[in-house]
């Protein structure tokens, strides 16, 4: 089986600071996996290189076998990568519904339509509502995005990414800043979305319940290098990882 995403010796440095060091791994289609590591390990930087927000100095990043290095985020998103951001990246002054809807209109290539009101575009509205229902946000559809609780803003961000029907979805700390109950809910939701949308899902996370609860595979980054890769059990019992990051339980 061909990998959905494959990194080959990806290297990135800012001056003398090596933020990504010879990272290689392959993500299989349908896989749900986590990237963990201490703060500053280069997790988000790695995401930024995959989505074209940053260019690696060397190495290849293959999406479904195609090298995407050097392409703009816009081009890369069109090839099937979706991404939710560490800090929810929304349109704060628009309603929750319109946040998703603008993504639906983009997907349907209707954002140039300038005469009929947004409400008249039924296909986009229906699609947006169905996504909001999947996220459990449908009751908040008419609120403005900035009024939402922090956790709901992050869910909305995921919702916007889902609209574009990505095959590979990258989530950057989906539960960061959430209360324990919100984490629990988000954990289950993400697992549900992964199945329902048949996604290949890679998430960065510090919440170990989430990492060991839903990931099939865990990759550990430290100082920009891939320290370990394996099933949750293998990682839990890996001495190096325990010393570097997990700590003695």
């Amino acid at each position, binding site marked *: 089986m061909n990998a959905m995403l494959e990194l080959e010796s990806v290297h990135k440095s800012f001056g003398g600071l090596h933020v990504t060091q010879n990272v290689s791994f392959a993500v299989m289609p349908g896989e749900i996996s986590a990237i963990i590591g201490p703060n500053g390990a280069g997790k988000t930087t790695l995401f930024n290189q995959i*989505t074209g927000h940053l260019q690696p100095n060397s190495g290849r990043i293959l999406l479904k076998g195609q090298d995407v290095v050097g392409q703009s985020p*816009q081009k890369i998103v069109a090839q099937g990568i979706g991404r939710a951001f560490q800090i929810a*990246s929304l349109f704060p002054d*628009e309603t929750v519904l319109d946040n998703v809807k603008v993504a639906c209109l983009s997907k349907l290539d209707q954002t140039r*339509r300038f005469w009929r009101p947004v409400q008249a575009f039924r296909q986009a509205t229906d699609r947006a509502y169905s996504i909001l229902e999947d996220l459990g946000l449908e009751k908040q559809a008419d609120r403005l995005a900035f009024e939402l609780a922090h956790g709901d803003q992050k869910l909305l961000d995921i919702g916007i990414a889902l609209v574009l029907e990505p095959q590979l979805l990258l989530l950057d700390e989906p539960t960061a800043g959430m209360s324990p109950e919100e984490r629990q809910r988000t954990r289950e939701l993400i697992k549900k979305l992964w199945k329902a949308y048949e996604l290949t899902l890679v998430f960065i996370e510090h919440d170990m319940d989430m990492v060991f609860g839903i990931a099939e595979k865990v990759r550990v980054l430290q100082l920009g290098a891939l320290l370990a890769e394996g099933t949750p059990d293998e990682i839990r019992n890996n001495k190096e990882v325990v010393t570097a990051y997990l700590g003695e339980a």
Partner: protein
Amino acid sequence: MTMKPGPKFSAAVLWTLMIMGFALVPVLMSSSYQLNLASHVLVWGLFAVAFNMLWGVTGMLSFGQALYYGLGAYFVGLMVEYLGSAWYLPAIGIGMLAVAATSFLLGLLVIRVGGVYFTMLTLAFGQLAWQITFKWYDFTGGDDGIQGITAPGFLQNPIAYYYFLLVLVMLSMWILKRMAYSPFGLMLRCVRQNPERVRFLGRRVRRNQLRVYIVSSLFAGLAGSLMAGIDNSIHTDMFFWTTSGEVILMSVLGGLNQFFGPFVGAIAMIIIEDIVGAWTEYWSLIIGSLIMGMVILFPKGLVGELYHLKLRMMQPKAGRSE
């Protein structure tokens, strides 16, 4: 921009009241001066609303929209002067074509830079156009401007011209309002709030900025060409940076976040200028202080504050569920 459209009927009531109000001016007026004032309100109102599509909606603060306002006016002025008043109406259309071409070409250049650089670049081009018009005395009349621009046929009658103006301005505002609430308008608001995310939806930020720059400039040009027939004269001041500044002030005064905000701002500004100007020669000092006071008292603008008052009254117990 929070543009939740209210119930359909209230929008219809608003339009009806506004059009009726302006339509009754010639009937109720006690002097032709009031007609002149109302005409100015309509033209500036259109100019300000068109400008706000750029600033309030898309977040592009142009300090050079006077360029297109002046261009529209001078196309009418020069064509009537050199070719005769029969060219008045065609000149409006030709002027708009020229504005479309100019704003497309300049737009390609100015939208490449963002923020304050965009503002400075638009200012520079506006001032360039003013300099050319000012210096090219043989062709443009320079500082003398152009006088005796008369509209053809029945439009020479000020009341007929007023209704002609009213129809065109209201039609233009209707078109702009439809745009503001369409998917295109939503996309523009998204470009203002989070361009990075727009790119990650696979949409082009600059392409949308260019589109709205052309649309806004087109209607600024139309406003300028309509102005030529009100006082039957135009002046290089129409290109000057203070003209660009005037619509910025009107937008701030009325409220950037409401479609009709800049229009109300234009009404307020022109009435204040008229009243204050009548009793003191230090009118600009008084107006400056007044506007400062109003902006401090009503930071959301006149329409913005009204809108929020209405929201508060509709939800007496605004207990927010967090």
